[in-house]
């Protein structure tokens, strides 16, 4: 490895991201070349200085949460692209069902819903009529609330009657 090649991979060398062979070649070159060794030391000292400067100033509290939300949205914890289950809450965990089981469950839920909706109309027409004569009802309560006389107390179900009487 010559100087030009070393300078191209210097960042990767410091980050230890080179392959083992490339890293050995780079290390041999640094030991032999004083200029590249000095360049490596300068870059390491620069990075260290930057870390020290950044460590002195804490980020705003809200910024950490906002960045976490962007980088780790809730749905990522449910739908993992690689199929691996992450640490999520119980209600947020991914549930996988076989397609036939899911179809059966879906049909059951839809059928139950339809049954509940149609239940009042499906009663046999011969069923008894709900009669509310005599007793107080919501309508009479409304009447009482508006100050009108409640007629239900007079109503015994009789037929209207008209007759003459002496004065």
């Amino acid at each position, binding site marked *: 490895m010559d100087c030009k090649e070393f300078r191209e991979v210097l960042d990767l060398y410091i980050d230890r991201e080179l392959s083992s062979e490339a890293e050995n070649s780079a290390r041999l070159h640094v030991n032999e070349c004083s200029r590249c060794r000095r360049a490596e030391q300068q870059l390491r000292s620069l990075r260290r200085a930057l870390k020290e400067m950044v460590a002195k100033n804490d980020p705003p509290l809200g910024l950490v949460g906002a960045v976490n939300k962007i980088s780790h949205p809730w749905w990522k914890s449910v739908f993992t692209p690689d199929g691996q289950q992450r640490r999520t809450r119980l209600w947020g965990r991914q549930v996988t069902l076989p397609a036939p089981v899911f179809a059966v469950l879906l049909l059951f839920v839809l059928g139950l819903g339809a049954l509940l909706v149609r239940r009042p109309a499906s009663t046999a027409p011969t069923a008894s009529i709900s009669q509310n004569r005599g007793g107080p009802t919501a309508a009479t309560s409304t009447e009482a609330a508006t100050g009108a006389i409640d007629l239900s107390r007079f109503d015994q179900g009789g037929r*209207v009657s008209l007759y003459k009487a002496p004065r």
Partner: protein
Amino acid sequence: MFKRISLVLAVAGLAISTVIFFRVELASVSASLNEPSKRIRFDVAAFEERSGTRELLAETTVEGPPGTDFDIKLQGARFRMDARFVNDLVASESLQVRVDLNTRRLYGQSERNLPLYEEDTQKQTLHLGFEEKLVLLPFGRNDSTLNSDQLKIEITPNLIEQTTSAKTRPLEIKILKASTGNLITVEATKVPHRFSWTVVLFKDGQEVAKGAVEDALVEQAQEISLKPNAQAGADVLGNPISLDLTTMRYVRNRPQDQVAFEFSLHHHQTGQGTTEMTAPEAAGIAQLTEPMSYDVSDYFKSAGAKYELKLIVKLAAGEDAK
């Protein structure tokens, strides 16, 4: 000389007849002004009765000339009553009251949550003296439950005689005590009740029979016999015709008021003593004094002839459309 005497006598006769005519007219006008005109006041009172005690809920008076009608409406949350009173002074001390009672009660709800109503219709005709009153029980007699509340509406007629021209006064409604929540409402109207009818039968445009009735009360059936005249043929002479005519109601309309009516045409089979109803249940709405024509050719056996029935209705004497 003879001409002068004749002229003087003619002028004198004209003057005397003019004076007599105007004196009679003035006397009759004066008499009509001084004659006590009659008005009738109905006191309508609604009571709540319980264990012998009664509480006045509402009170209204309706006053107007004879023939004033009124409606009493009772409106609750689940019960409604419309009572219509059609009144006529048939004698000096007697009223004829025709009553239409319509009630509607919410019975309950169907299984489909639709309201179910119990409806009742009654018609009554009562002759009421001024020493009597009408008692209306909207919910019937509750004799079995003596301690239960009972609603009673009493209608008491009063005859009022006034020396002034009472006909010009409009009818009046006075609310002496209003019911809470518009429970009971009273409405009054004055429309003509008495009509005169003329019925003419034409055969090929020629009058062959005629009949009339002078004082037909509204909602009361009248039989009008048609008397054949000299032009009537054997088809009419041998089978006298009569009408069962009922004036149903007076209809306010513009430009002219109308009268709704129903009639049935009857053929009387002489010799057999039977009556054949030939044109049953015809109906119409006629304008006052305008003839209504009906083609009744199909009900006569003379082939080729056109028989036409014309009915003309007018207000009876003494009736006022205003």
